[in-house]
């Protein structure tokens, strides 16, 4: 809900110089141990998602009427058939977590893609066109920012009906303002710079200016915001799932799994613990990478 909370570069601190060559970027990224760990974790989760069919010991929705709420293997009563135990209706928790990676990653990526596309567009328009259009766009963004994001997301889901797609849409809407603001601020910052003026004098139309000249130059803060945005999106969608408004059963979405497990909190710690843990790890991984990206892309902070 609060990616902007991190000391992400405000757009005014956007890099001004020429883009970094990839090699230099990689060197500085690699120097950041946390970021490398984060990247490794993301790759692991990604592989898990892609090869879920192979990796997971059981199908995610297969119930076993003889194995309700079995504990993990190291506890008494547990077995290696269900390494992390089973849930209330006898489904393998490990398998559900593995399949859940698909959902959570898709949520993160889809939300960020949608909000970056729409947000950047709105931001560019607001920055370039200005006037009444710009004001209206920014006022609407202000309104979205003023309302607690989860509340707004809940209302949107209530309108569209609970479900994975609708939850993603709701999250995309509530994170939109961050991208709009970054893009707009970058545009305003870049607009007066020489190269834009030069291009304009050279007869470039506003569309070409926007897409061809300004956009690449405000890419850095957007990329950082995007990687942090994935983690926000995963967290928000999980929160909606936890409130019963996200992905619907039997989808093995992590937040939904948690919501479903809540009543067993006193009786079966594992059904509550593991889904939360994978959410935490995944979100942390994206945040680590986001941090690394920022340090690598933002020369100002690199001392």
């Amino acid at each position, binding site marked *: 809900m609060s990616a902007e909370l991190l000391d992400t570069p405000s757009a005014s601190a956007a890099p001004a110089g020429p883009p970094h060559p990839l090699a230099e970027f990689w060197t500085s990224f690699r120097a950041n141990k946390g970021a490398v760990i984060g990247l490794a974790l993301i790759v692991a989760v990604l592989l898990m998602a892609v090869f879920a069919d192979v990796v997971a010991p059981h199908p995610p929705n297969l*119930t076993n*009427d003889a194995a*309700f*709420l079995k504990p993990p293997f190291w506890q008494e009563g547990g077995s290696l058939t269900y390494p992390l135990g089973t849930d*209330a209706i006898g489904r393998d928790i490990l398998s559900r977590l593995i399949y859940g990676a698909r959902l959570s990653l898709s949520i993160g990526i889809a939300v960020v893609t949608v909000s970056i596309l729409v947000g950047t567009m709105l931001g560019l328009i607001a920055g370039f066109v200005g006037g009444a259009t710009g004001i209206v766009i920014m006022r609407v963004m202000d309104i979205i920012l003023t309302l607690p994001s989860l509340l707004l997301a809940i209302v949107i889901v209530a309108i569209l009906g*609970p479900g994975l797609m609708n939850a993603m849409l709701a999250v995309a809407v509530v994170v939109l303002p961050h991208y709009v603001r970054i893009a707009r601020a970058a545009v305003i910052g870049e607009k007066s710079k020489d190269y834009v003026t030069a291009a304009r004098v050279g007869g470039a139309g506003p569309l070409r200016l926007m897409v061809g000249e300004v956009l690449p130059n405000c890419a850095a803060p957007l990329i950082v915001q995007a990687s942090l945005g994935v983690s926000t999106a995963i967290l928000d969608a999980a929160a909606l799932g936890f409130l019963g408004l996200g992905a*619907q*059963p039997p989808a093995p979405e992590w937040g939904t799994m948690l919501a*479903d497990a809540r*009543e067993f909190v006193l009786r079966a710690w594992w059904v509550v613990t593991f889904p939360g843990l994978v959410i935490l790890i995944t979100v942390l991984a994206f945040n680590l990478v986001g941090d690394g990206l920022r340090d690598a892309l933002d020369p100002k902070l690199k001392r």
Partner: protein
Amino acid sequence: MKRASLAVVLGAATALAASLPAGAKTLVYCSEGSPENFYPAVNTTGTSFDASSQIYSNIVNFERGTTNVVPDLAETWDITPDGKTYTFHLRKGVKWHSNKVFKPTRDFNADDVIFSFERQWKENNPFFRVTSSNHTYFNDMGLPKLLASLDKIDDYTIRFTLTQPEAPFLADLAMPFAAIQSKEYADAMMKAGTPDKLDQEPIGTGPFYLLQYQKDAIVRYRAFPQYYAGKAALDDLVFAITPDASVRWAKLQKGECHVMPYPNPADIDAMRKDPNVQVLEQPGLNIGYLAYNTKRKPFDDVRVRKALNMAINKKAIIDAVYLSTGVAAKNPIPPTMWSYNDAIKDDPYDPEGAKKLLAEAGFANGLTTDLWAMPVQRPYNPNARRIAELMQADLAKVGVKAEIKSYEWGEYRKRVQDGEHQTAMLGWTGDNGDPDNFLHTLLGCAAAEKGGGNTAKWCDKTYDDLVTKAKTITDKAERTKLYEQAQVVFKEQAPWFTIAHAVQLKPVRKEVVDFKLSPFGRHTFYGVSLK
């Protein structure tokens, strides 16, 4: 906003509270939610009824723990032989509670009874619209049509005249909506320009008076010393509002509360093992079911319905979702109800047989359907979504692909009654213990219309004739026969997959003496004491 909070602090409460006598008996009930307000006539939830029933008396009431109607504010009554006139002789010397804005100057009398009914009945009563004009139960029980007149004979005698004889009328008067409020208080509040107070800072004649209410936190009562039947054994009664079932159990375990409703099925085992806790139980008057929409393909074919009945593992549902809070259902009425046909055999769990039946019906390659699950917990179904997941997995094994669907609760019930589903879960809790209330209300042809309560939209001539005929006869033995036959037809035609009857379970700490389960699921604390 001087009333800075909803907290209703009444009477000399503050002075008293600080000096609660040592050894005062305080019973804490971990209730499941906040009452809507303290006017039961406009409410529909048990939560609200529990909160207001400690405060008010009725003319007649249910004997604690039973469905028997006993005297309350009326000591005796006469019914004319035609069953159309009820004369009630009211109790004398019954005192009203008081609070900081109102001190009663008179005892309870006939004016209060007339006021309490006219307020729900006559649109020109100044209080008809106060709080709400939606007097749900007064309407649902058909009283606007049934009541011809209500007259005061003298200060302690009133007479109801009905338009037709109605056997359950007395029981209606014992229901929470018929609570008696003070006309004197109402008039005083109207004069003061704060009529709402009547329902927010209630004055009653009941065993407890309201001391404090803080939304989502606490309802605090104190025993009314002048209660006509004698002061309650408890000194204080506290409803600690605790919406989460696991938390309620944790509190009960720690001794932070004495009684809790609606336990988590998952925690029942631990409850039974706890030496400080006793789990009271009673079969409930309810049924949870999955209805097949018999007007839509492929469920117009009885073989498909039968096949699905055989494909779903009922025992697994009971074990995983109800645990010990439910018993498997084979008939549409609960086993405690008269005319329950125990000779009926339930469809066996037989996936192979189901496949064969499906093939016979032309679905050898399987079929797809929707599977509606309520978004909310209901008394007869602790977790519809989880049941849906189990059913979905079972159905997949016989080649039926079911897609789970859900809507917002009000919307859900409306759409199901409109017949938009192919298969949908729902259930029913009985009002009066009569089989007609299940068999005709839920499965008769009249209710199969769009918007009707027959969610299978099932209209079977043989069945309908049986239950319609049973409605018109008064002889119980004869009715029993008809209903037993109807249950046979029901099973053959399989409009429902009958899931379970929920059992009312109430964990109570051992120091609580004489708490009784109510067949209606209410919680009454007069008569209860603490060791």
